[in-house]
């Protein structure tokens, strides 16, 4: 194994130096942590993500939820220029903060539909710390706030070349797709198989590939985890500063819950109203003993006939 790595790093050696001489190198370090009050699923998800990001530094839970600017100091302490922070509210809602540490910007997102690797039972697997290919939806380039989001994803989820614990092969893809105003994130293993003759015969495309050399066919197997993010706000600074974007369409989970409750309460109100209406109607028809209109006594009433 060591020999393989050596041989690979030798071949890479010259190329690695070249960009270092250039203007800017992709150098990222991510501080990963959560607030207090996260559930086990949130915690497992955080662990999963940390295992996928070899350039990350995991820290203990942050005590405060109001003084998030403390995260900047923490990031400085650990030499991190990105912060990836899980904020749990009410033991059920999870908000994800992503920030470029000293100067911002910061994005706050609501995380939904999260499934950890463990509970998904996918058969895919990848090297711990291999660099992923990040696949972005083209819609990310449409609006400025989405471009900011894309850049942040690139910094945080993209493992920089030459990260300390990174492995030299590429064996997984991370997909970021924009659908329904939300960002859907998936993680797939790249599975390479020798092209079978039958498929090569059927498809037109694989034939030329085979001529070039022993190109293998690529298929994907999902690894997990899965989650969906809804952007809420973007702040100019890192955990502070003016808000430069706010998602109007975001409905907070609290509001959703309260609406459900009021809807449920509405059912009772409706029934009660119906009851009152029925009483009023009966009164109108003179069918009630007290209140409402009294019926004129009929000539042929039994009480009158046999008085």
């Amino acid at each position, binding site marked *: 194994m060591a020999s393989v790595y050596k041989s690979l790093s030798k071949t890479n050696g010259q*190329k690695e130096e070249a960009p270092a001489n250039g203007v800017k190198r992709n150098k990222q370090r991510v501080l990963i942590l959560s607030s207090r009050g996260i559930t086990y699923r949130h915690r497992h998800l955080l662990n999963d993500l940390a295992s996928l990001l070899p350039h990350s530094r995991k820290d203990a839970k942050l005590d405060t939820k109001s003084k998030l600017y403390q995260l900047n100091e923490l990031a400085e302490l650990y030499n991190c220029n990105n912060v990836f922070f899980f904020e749990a509210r009410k033991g059920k809602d999870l908000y994800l903060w992503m920030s470029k540490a000293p100067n911002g910007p910061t994005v706050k997102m609501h995380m939904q539909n999260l499934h950890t*690797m463990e509970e998904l039972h996918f058969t895919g697997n*990848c090297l711990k710390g291999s660099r992923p290919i990040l696949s972005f939806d083209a819609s990310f380039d449409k609006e400025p706030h989405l471009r900011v989001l894309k850049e942040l994803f690139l910094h945080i989820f993209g493992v920089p070349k030459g990260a300390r614990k990174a492995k030299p092969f590429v064996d997984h893809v991370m997909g970021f797709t924009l659908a329904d105003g939300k960002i859907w994130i998936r993680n*797939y293993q790249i599975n390479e198989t020798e092209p079978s003759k039958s498929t090569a015969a059927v498809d037109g495309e694989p034939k030329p590939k085979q001529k070039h050399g022993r190109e293998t066919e690529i298929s994907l197997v999902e690894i997990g985890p899965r989650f969906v993010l809804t952007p809420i706000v973007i702040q100019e600074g890192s955990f502070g500063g003016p808000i430069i*974007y706010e998602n109007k369409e975001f409905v907070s989970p609290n509001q959703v819950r309260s609406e459900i409750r009021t809807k449920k309460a509405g059912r009772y109100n409706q029934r009660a109203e119906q009851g009152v209406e029925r009483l009023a109607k009966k009164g109108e028809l003179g069918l009630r003993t007290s209140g409402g209109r009294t019926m004129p006594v009929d000539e042929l009433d039994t009480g009158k006939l046999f008085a």
Partner: protein
Amino acid sequence: MVNKGKLKMALAADKSTGYKKLNLKKKEKLARKTKSKKGGDTPDVGKIVEGEWEDVEGSEDEVAEDEEEAVGAAVEESVSDEEEDDEVAGKMEIDFAGIDESDSDSSAGENDQNNSDSEEEDDEDIPVSDLEDLSDGEKEDLIPHQRLTINNTVALNAALKRISLPVSKMTFSEHQTITTSEPVVIDDVSDDLKRELAFYAQSLSAAQQGRKLLKEEGVPFTRPTDYFAEMVKADEHMAKIKAKLIEEAAGKKASAEARKQRDLKKFGKQVQVAKLQERDKERKQTLDKIKDLKRKRQGADTTTTNEADLFDVALEEETSSKPSRKNREGPNKRAKKDEKYGHGGKKRFKKSGDAMSTGDLKGFSSKKMKGGAAKRPGKARRAGGKR
């Protein structure tokens, strides 16, 4: 109210009444008021009342008192102000602007922050409290907008510029990002299969493209088969997944088996019934045969012993065909049990003989009394038979 105040102010402005003039008129009016109170002049009363009424309103409005007084005066002066409205319009606008500033505009600060597009959307926004009156059906169609949109494009671009990596200048292996050429379109997000397929297709194309680019740059892509390192999912985890898969497969198999068995059972019942009927029929046939044989035998007594023997054997075989379980505990099982455990009356003297048992000649056979059973053949014959 405010509008009315504005209008009056505008009127006042139109009349270009300076404050000094106004003050004069005010004094005049006061003097007249006092006069009328003292003297009680009838023709003036209507006008004065009007003026007072105006005063009251003026105090309600948040406009300076003396201005309002002036308006009152103006009203008194000009009976036909309505005709002059057209002329007034030009100057009114200016005054409105002034009033707006002092009075009711609190959103001015927000507008400064917002962009032009947010101002457009301000009008569309409906407060959530207003929505409660709507029915559920209408509610579903509406997306309640309770907050103002902040979308500071300039700041966003600046932030992006500050942090963005020069992706175009870097080699692909440096950043490894691929953006699809066309946006991924998902018709129905709630359709799981289609959605996941779209995600898969996006990632697959990225993987293919990425491999090509990486190979062009000479960066290792495929993991050699002899390269072992720690994986994201540990072996135990993978074992768990494997166990889960196996369990699933086993469950599927078991359920299929169970279904098959169920079907067989349904069908098997029919088979069993058929078999029973067949057996019944067979038994009937044998019994008939036996009866026939018995009759024949009694009719023709002088058959050779050999033949008789043969028949006997056959008979024995026929009759001693294993007593099937069904026959043994047939429908009279209950009766037997009742007899044994006490159903059906007294058991006393049940075993003692009576007229019936005395008359029963079941065990009697004259043939046996005459010559006994078939004689035992002699030794030599027996030995011969063995051979």
